């Protein structure tokens, strides 16, 4: 219990020095007064008493000092002392200090910036109550569960075991599971597909990211709205009047933080809704990276997305409004649950699995293969849905490794500088050791200095990181799917930076400190001044050995980063040079969804036709077309296609083959400059009434229609019983989804023929379309004219995805561009830091050899020979560094092979260019001090001491 008394005392002695001093004086004065009183009582005169008292007590200051000594027994005071001394020492060489701090700040800043992203993407939990209790349901199966599942909307992927996995379930299953079991205290459902909606307010349309959520969404998450109320189970019924909760960010952007917004009317896809609440600022939904603007009750789905509702309807006639809620084959809701207190994930899974199997029992047909029956998985959902984590975890870890290496290089530099300085301080250290300073005490002193450097570097690094994360975030939101994240520094990030700074300080400071204090006192003390040790001296030699090793490591690591940068830059240029198969220049794209304002069926077609006609009439427009998906735009619709007269290969599914499919308007192929190879394109005449036709690409024809003439062959997408479609033309191959993929077999269907509704199950009903406008000159100049025409036709509709085709392609290269830029930046930074290292080492080494050089010159060596002598040493170092670097790069680049395009990770050209670049830049860095050494006047050099 003694600490109970000791700790406050230490704290007071440290931080309230003045008070402690004051108390000490008071205490001693009291004693003195008492002494004087006693002498007075003995009958002394006043003067005598004071004099005698002072004499008795002895030197007041001496006592005080002794008392202070008694207090000065703690580590902290030593630390403060060390810090003061450190600051003085660092201030004495401001140039060196600035260089060290700057290189550390760059290294630590880069690490903090990337770590902030890792934190935001991979580590942060959802801003909800007790996020660790949240669980996400998922299913997995070996192969498509025929009969059980018709369509999956939302995420779908493959796990490591090759099983199909998805978090989307049928709504009916959600209802059935929800009613039973005692694993969850409550459950929520949301539509697996986010929906872009047209949110009209006071007659102005606007795009918003909408999310359809069950009435239990907010209560299960335990999220309170900032204003108004949340969506409740009463709102989430077909009969309820439609309500909406808007996000804080949207409230700011669209409503200017108007406090009276609750109760106002808005329209969502032309359906009136009432705003009942505004979410709290930190709540963004359950999907990190996505910023939901408006939450709507799940049961408003048929109102908001009437065309999608029909998708699952396989019966005849008009589908009922609740089609998606009643059908069991449409799996479209994501289910999350909050575990009851005390329930863990392990025992929860089998219980839920039983519930799922019971609920699915009546969907399983005799034709359903047993291995394809979905099984339930449950995973922690404390961090929300994991799309963003899946997408970015690998790139982020690679970037983290890159910045880690940059920091290592910076550390090596700092260690080298400290080593160099330590040897100039050798005399000081020797003196201190000689007069009795302990070696641990000195090491601590030197370490304090290096940690101080690192901490200052870390603080400046935080500023760099702050700026860097903003640049990174701006970049992240420029992709095809903008990523919106909160990267404000939180305790975890700050802790990371603090830990990195201190560890860095110890890492680069320890070895110089150990070496510096291991001095042989006698020769050091004999030196007249701070002399630099020549290479012949044993300790100097050892120190040079460490310095050289550090420089070799630096060169090697810089080269690794340079090779990485080269690989990513070449990947980007390779992709940029990919011929997409169509002409992306002078092409303006935009999307419009007239169904959001109630246009349907023939009226919808007329709308598209009229809009096409009016845009085509604009001066400067060459041609106009429409399509469901734009090319290289990220929209992919792949369907199982049954081709008449085609025998599937052993590896293929006997039901048919997968083909990419797009529904397009007349003139699409011409507008995109997709040349016909055979037959005809899609024309005005291909309507609902005419025979069903399609144009396929060369890959489709080559793979599936290679025996005989492809023209006239028939196939049916989706349901093999549907009436077949005839191939009337073959068009040249073009990229469909992105530039990396192999061109898929592709089918282009006339969009007018989708009006029959026969293929709605696979294609979806006719709804939103994209326009392609081929212009004579700059397509962006046409955007406002196009917008005007659309507004004139229907002021309630908003255009979206307005961009040029080249911009759209560039957006798909967002990750590659990010990598190319970041790795180049860090690569160049690494090379520069490495060069500083080479320069520093050579400058130090040549200064130490000034005398030797003078002697050589006096004995007749030419400047050229001296230069050669020193450069030889530089080149030996560089050669070793580069050799090591290439070996490491060959090994390390394998990790990134999946991110590359058009070249192997061992690409010899990239390696050669990187090595050459490294060699030449570092050679220059080594040449400067070498030349200076060779220029020295032999007389000066000989006298040099």
């Amino acid at each position, binding site marked *: 219990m*003694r600490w109970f008394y000791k700790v406050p005392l230490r704290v007071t002695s440290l931080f309230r020095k003045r008070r402690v001093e004051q108390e000490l004086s*008071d*205490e*001693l004065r*009291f004693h003195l007064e008492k*002494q004087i009183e006693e002498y007075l009582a003995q009958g002394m005169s006043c003067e005598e008493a004071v004099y005698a008292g002072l004499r008795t*007590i*002895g030197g007041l200051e001496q*006592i005080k000092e*002794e008392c202070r000594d008694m207090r000065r027994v703690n580590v902290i005071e030593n630390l403060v002392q060390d810090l003061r001394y450190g600051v003085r020492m660092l201030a004495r060489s401001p140039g060196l200090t600035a260089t060290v701090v700057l290189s550390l700040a760059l290294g630590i800043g880069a690490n903090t910036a990337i770590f902030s992203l890792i934190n935001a993407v991979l580590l942060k939990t959802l801003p909800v109550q007790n996020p660790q209790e949240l669980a996400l349901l998922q299913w997995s199966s070996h192969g498509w569960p025929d009969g059980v599942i018709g369509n999956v909307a939302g995420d779908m992927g493959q796990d490591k075991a090759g099983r199909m996995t998805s978090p989307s379930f049928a709504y009916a299953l959600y209802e059935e599971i929800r009613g039973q079991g005692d694993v969850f205290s409550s459950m929520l459902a949301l539509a697996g597909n986010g929906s872009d909606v047209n949110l009209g307010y006071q007659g102005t349309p606007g795009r918003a990211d909408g999310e359809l959520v069950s009435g239990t969404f907010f209560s299960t998450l335990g999220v309170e709205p900032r204003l108004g109320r949340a969506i409740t189970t009463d709102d989430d019924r077909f009969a309820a009047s439609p309500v909406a909760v808007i996000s804080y960010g949207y409230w700011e952007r669209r409503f200017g933080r108007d406090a009276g917004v609750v109760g106002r009317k808005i329209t969502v896809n032309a359906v009136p809704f009432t705003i009942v609440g505004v979410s709290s600022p930190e709540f963004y939904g359950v999907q990190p990276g996505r910023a939901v603007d408006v939450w709507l009750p799940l049961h408003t789905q048929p109102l908001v997305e009437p065309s999608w509702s029909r998708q699952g309807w396989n019966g005849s006639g008009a589908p009922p409004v609740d089609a998606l809620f009643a059908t069991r084959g449409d799996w479209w809701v994501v289910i999350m649950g909050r575990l009851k207190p005390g329930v863990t994930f392990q025992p929860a899974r089998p219980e839920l699995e039983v519930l799922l199997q019971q609920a699915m029992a009546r969907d399983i047909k005799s034709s359903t293969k047993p291995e394809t029956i979905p099984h339930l998985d449950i995973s922690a959902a404390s961090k929300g849905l994991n799309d963003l984590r899946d997408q970015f975890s690998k790139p982020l870890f690679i970037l983290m490794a890159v910045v880690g290496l940059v920091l290592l290089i910076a550390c090596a530099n700092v260690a080298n500088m400290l080593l160099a300085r330590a040897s100039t301080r050798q005399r000081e250290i020797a003196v201190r050791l000689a007069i009795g300073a302990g070696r641990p005490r000195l090491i601590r002193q030197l370490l304090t200095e290096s940690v101080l450097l690192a901490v200052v570097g870390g603080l400046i690094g935080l500023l760099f990181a702050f700026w860097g994360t903003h640049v990174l975030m701006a970049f992240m939101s420029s992709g095809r799917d903008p990523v919106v994240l909160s990267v404000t520094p939180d305790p975890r990030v700050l802790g990371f930076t603090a830990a990195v700074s201190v560890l860095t300080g110890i890492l680069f400071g320890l070895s110089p400190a150990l070496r510096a204090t291991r001095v042989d006192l006698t020769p050091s003390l004999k030196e007249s001044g701070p002399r630099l040790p020549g290479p012949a001296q044993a300790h100097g030699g050892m120190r040079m050995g460490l310095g050289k090793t550090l420089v070799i490591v630096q060169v090697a690591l810089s080269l690794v980063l340079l090779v990485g940068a080269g690989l990513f830059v070449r990947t980007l240029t390779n992709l940029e040079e990919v011929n997409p198969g169509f002409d992306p220049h002078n092409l303006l794209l935009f999307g419009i969804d007239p169904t959001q304002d109630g246009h349907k069926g023939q009226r919808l077609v007329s709308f598209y036709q009229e809009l096409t006609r009016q845009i085509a009439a604009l001066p400067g427009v060459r041609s106009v077309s429409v399509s469901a998906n734009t090319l290289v735009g990220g929209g992919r619709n792949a369907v199982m296609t049954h081709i008449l007269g085609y025998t599937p290969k052993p590896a293929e599914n006997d039901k048919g083959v997968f083909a990419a499919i797009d529904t397009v308007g007349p003139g699409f192929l011409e507008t995109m400059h997709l040349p016909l190879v055979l037959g005809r394109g899609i024309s005005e005449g291909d309507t609902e009434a005419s025979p069903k036709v399609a144009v396929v690409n060369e890959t489709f024809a080559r793979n599936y229609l290679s025996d005989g003439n492809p023209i006239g062959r028939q196939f049916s997408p989706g349901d093999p019983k549907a009436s077949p479609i005839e191939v009337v033309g073959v068009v040249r191959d073009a990229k469909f989804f992105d530039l990396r993929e192999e061109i898929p077999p592709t089918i282009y269907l006339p969009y007018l023929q989708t009006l029959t509704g026969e293929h709605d199950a696979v294609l979806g009903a006719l709804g939103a379309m994209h326009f392609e406008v081929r212009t004579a000159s700059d397509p962006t100049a046409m955007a406002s004219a196009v917008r005007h025409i659309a507004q004139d036709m229907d002021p309630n509709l908003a255009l979206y995805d307005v961009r040029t085709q080249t911009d759209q392609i560039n957006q798909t290269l967002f990750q590659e561009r990010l990598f190319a830029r970041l790795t180049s930046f860090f690569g160049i930074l690494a090379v520069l830091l490495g060069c500083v290292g080479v320069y520093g080492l050579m400058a130090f080494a040549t200064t130490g050899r000034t005398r030797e050089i003078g002697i050589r010159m006096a004995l007749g060596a030419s400047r050229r020979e001296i230069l050669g002598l020193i450069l030889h040493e530089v080149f030996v170092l560089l050669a070793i560094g580069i050799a090591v670097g290439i070996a490491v790069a060959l090994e390390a680049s394998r990790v990134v092979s999946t991110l590359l395009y058009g070249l192997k990770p061992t690409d010899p050209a990239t390696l050669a260019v990187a090595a050459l670049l490294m060699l030449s830049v570092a050679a220059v860095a080594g040449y400067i001090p070498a030349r200076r050494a060779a220029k020295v006047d032999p007389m000066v050099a000989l006298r040099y001491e």
Partner: protein
Amino acid sequence: MGKPTDLVQGTLDLLILKTIALEPMHGWGIALRIRQVSKEVLQVNQGALYPALHRLEQSGWIRAKWGESDNNRRAKYYSLTPAGRKYLEQEETNWKRLSTAIGLVLETF
């Protein structure tokens, strides 16, 4: 307390601890009491008293508190902490054993 304590210093510590064991006292009071109780034999040097008090305080054996002395003057009063009380008992036993041993040696010869 494994290591042997310096006799003089240890003695002063022991005297201080024993003196304030009954009631909190200020430095002057401690010096005075030691002088009176020892019948003027033991004169505590102020130069040694205050550093000793501060050291004992830093070690957590005693604690200090400002209080009022006679004539309303502020003085620093020292008292034992529970740990200090145990330490005092221990030191007292040590001292008795030591002085008995020394006495034995002196009587024998």
